[in-house]
């Protein structure tokens, strides 16, 4: 018998070592998130997953699950906070959804729709972030980076390459390429790398793909992100520890 905690009135079982986010997703409960990825260690930077645990706000992706916690997620207070965070992300970078090739496949956009964020609400910073188009097959459009570090984690943990890193602090924090020239062409990144697959927004792009996927069949055209995040989350693990739901997730 595993222990349980309460999430928005539902009883959620958990295994030792699971976070609130992992346990919730495994049990089929969605908590909005951006920097959390089922295949990587939680990072806790975007704060989209903030919930109230026993009355105190905390990031559910890093919060270890404990017996009898009272977790509140889908309440207006938390959703209002999430809307503000999404608005700040939109204002901080240069996100022009209508002309972004990641439109329809972008987690930030999908979250915006899901949380019903209709206006930015903040003054746009319009940062100047030139592209890195130096690599023959891969384009970096830093304008859209939300600093989730998924690419950093994927490149080092899975690809063993360390192509990406974050530099600077606070508002000047930004993604850099680990090469003396600072250019992607001088790294050993490859199209098949995990780092190519994890960016939740439209920063790391295979070149010349653009808008080849028509409107209507893009990932979030049919079902909202809240429904799909559950598809990706590890549910029941089999005896060997393999998780069916993880396969094919990206």
């Amino acid at each position: 018998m595993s222990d349980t905690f309460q999430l928005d009135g539902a009883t959620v079982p958990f295994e030792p070592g699971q976070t609130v986010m992992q346990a919730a997703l495994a049990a089929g409960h969605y908590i909005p998130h951006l920097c959390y990825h089922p295949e990587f260690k939680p990072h806790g930077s975007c704060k989209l997953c903030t919930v109230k645990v026993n009355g105190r706000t905390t990031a559910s992706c890093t919060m270890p699950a404990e017996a009898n916690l009272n977790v509140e997620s889908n309440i207006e207070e938390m959703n209002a906070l999430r809307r503000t965070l999404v608005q700040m992300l939109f204002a901080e970078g240069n996100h022009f959804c209508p002309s972004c090739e990641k439109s329809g496949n972008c987690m930030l956009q999908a979250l915006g729709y899901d949380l019903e964020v209709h206006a930015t609400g903040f003054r746009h910073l319009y940062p100047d972030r030139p592209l890195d188009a130096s690599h023959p097959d891969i384009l970096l459009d830093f304008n859209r980076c939300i600093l989730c570090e998924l690419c950093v984690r994927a490149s080092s943990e899975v690809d063993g390459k360390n192509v990406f890193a974050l530099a600077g602090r606070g508002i000047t924090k930004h993604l850099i390429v680990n090469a003396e020239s600072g250019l992607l062409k001088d790294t050993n990144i490859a199209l098949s790398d995990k780092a190519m697959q994890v960016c939740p927004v439209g920063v790391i792009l295979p070149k010349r793909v653009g808008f080849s996927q028509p409107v209507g069949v893009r990932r979030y055209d049919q079902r909202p992100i809240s429904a799909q995040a559950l598809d990706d989350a590890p549910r029941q693990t089999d005896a060997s520890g393999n998780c069916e739901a993880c396969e094919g997730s990206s």
Partner: protein
Amino acid sequence: MGNNLETAAHPENLRRVAIDPVSRVEGHGKVTLLLDENDHVQQVRLHIVEFRGFEKFVQGRPYWEAPVMVQRLCGICPVSHHIAASKAMDMIVGATITPTAEKVRRLMHYGQILQSHALHFFHLCSPDLLFGFDSDVAKRNIVGIVAAYPDIAKQGVLLRKFGQEVIRVTAGKRIHGTGSIPGGVNKNVSIEERDYLLKDVEQIVTWSRESVGIARKLFEQNLDLYNNFGRFDAHTLNMVRADGALDLYHGGLRARDMSGKTLFDHYDYGHYWDVIFEDVKPWSYMKFPFLRSLGTENGWYRVGPLSRVTQCDFIPSPLAEAERKAFLAFDGGKAAGATLGFHWARMIEMLHAAEVIRDLLHDPDLQGTDLVSTGERQERGVGVIEAPRGTLIHHYKVDENDQIVRCNLIVSTTHNNQAMNEAIRQVARQYLDGKKLTEGLLNHIEVAIRAFDPCLSCATHALGKMPLEVELLDAEGGRVDRLTRSSSGVFE
């Protein structure tokens, strides 16, 4: 500074006044009439600030983004930019596009022509045309048309809607679609989508034909006014198919001078800069293109439906071709040179678009699956189409990293820049009485501007009147009078 005063007989007697375009009333079209020392309207300036910055904005972006991004350039005919940029990018990727890709794009483009022409004629112009230019402003709007001519209003709405549906099916969305991509398209037209459009298309052809009849009747009822209103002779520019037929998607450039002499024909638009040059003037952000062989002063020309319908050798669809012949023959050919002839020509094109859409829908190539092609990568790409308002040129240079390094666009309304000034000048000469700006004059100036269907935000308010500011300057540059009208029809 005394040079370049394009229409002045004695430029030395005119004083040039630099007018800060920012001073124009927000969202208003602004027209300056300059008098000469004898108080005749000598020069007209329609101030346009709409097209700034885009060519800079697109620099550094990856080329495959351009066809989608450029739609933001103009909320009024985004599909035209989408397709023109795609054609330029076809050249960049070295593609010869597949029959399916070309036909899906054509369908999208003629859908745009249909919806744009319907919007213009029924929503924006029919109040002026059906009630008269000087009729009660309160009634002279689309709401008034719905009340007085419910059938015509309904027809206009449904024609436009059909065009928008053609766009949605081919581009994926009604606005900011993504259907056309470098080297082809990202989707074909499914059998269900085809059948969905096919069920209404015969009705659309019929209504389009009736619309040509309405335009004709307007001429018949007010022959003198329609033939002579804002009339002027102009050189023309348009694209034609290899056999001389009207083709709004692809062809070579044809230019004729006002006497009808051909200046160039079937000209490969990949080198348009050898025949068309752009002039800049200190009082406008908008460029003034001219035909190089005729020079800066005299080389301006007219584009759009009137030029296309009168200068093509034939229209390759039977109903529209019959209407073209009737238009050219009408009143000894007079309507075909009239500024208000734009409306008639526009309706003939709308009929042609409806016929083309119908024929394409019956073409099995639309269901083809060979959507994209590529070839040898090029550095420079030029894409030209005949957009609803006229020839549209997109020109890009892309570096080895796939980034756009240079972009030049000549949009239809820019081609018509000087022609619009000329039309307003004729109207001002006809209707300016003394040194006082009247509501009547302003109304007539609006009708002249509207005939060209410029893609200016002031000219495309679907409801209400064109917000317009007219000012009258004397030969010394001093302001004699000023009159503005808001979109609710209030004069100040």
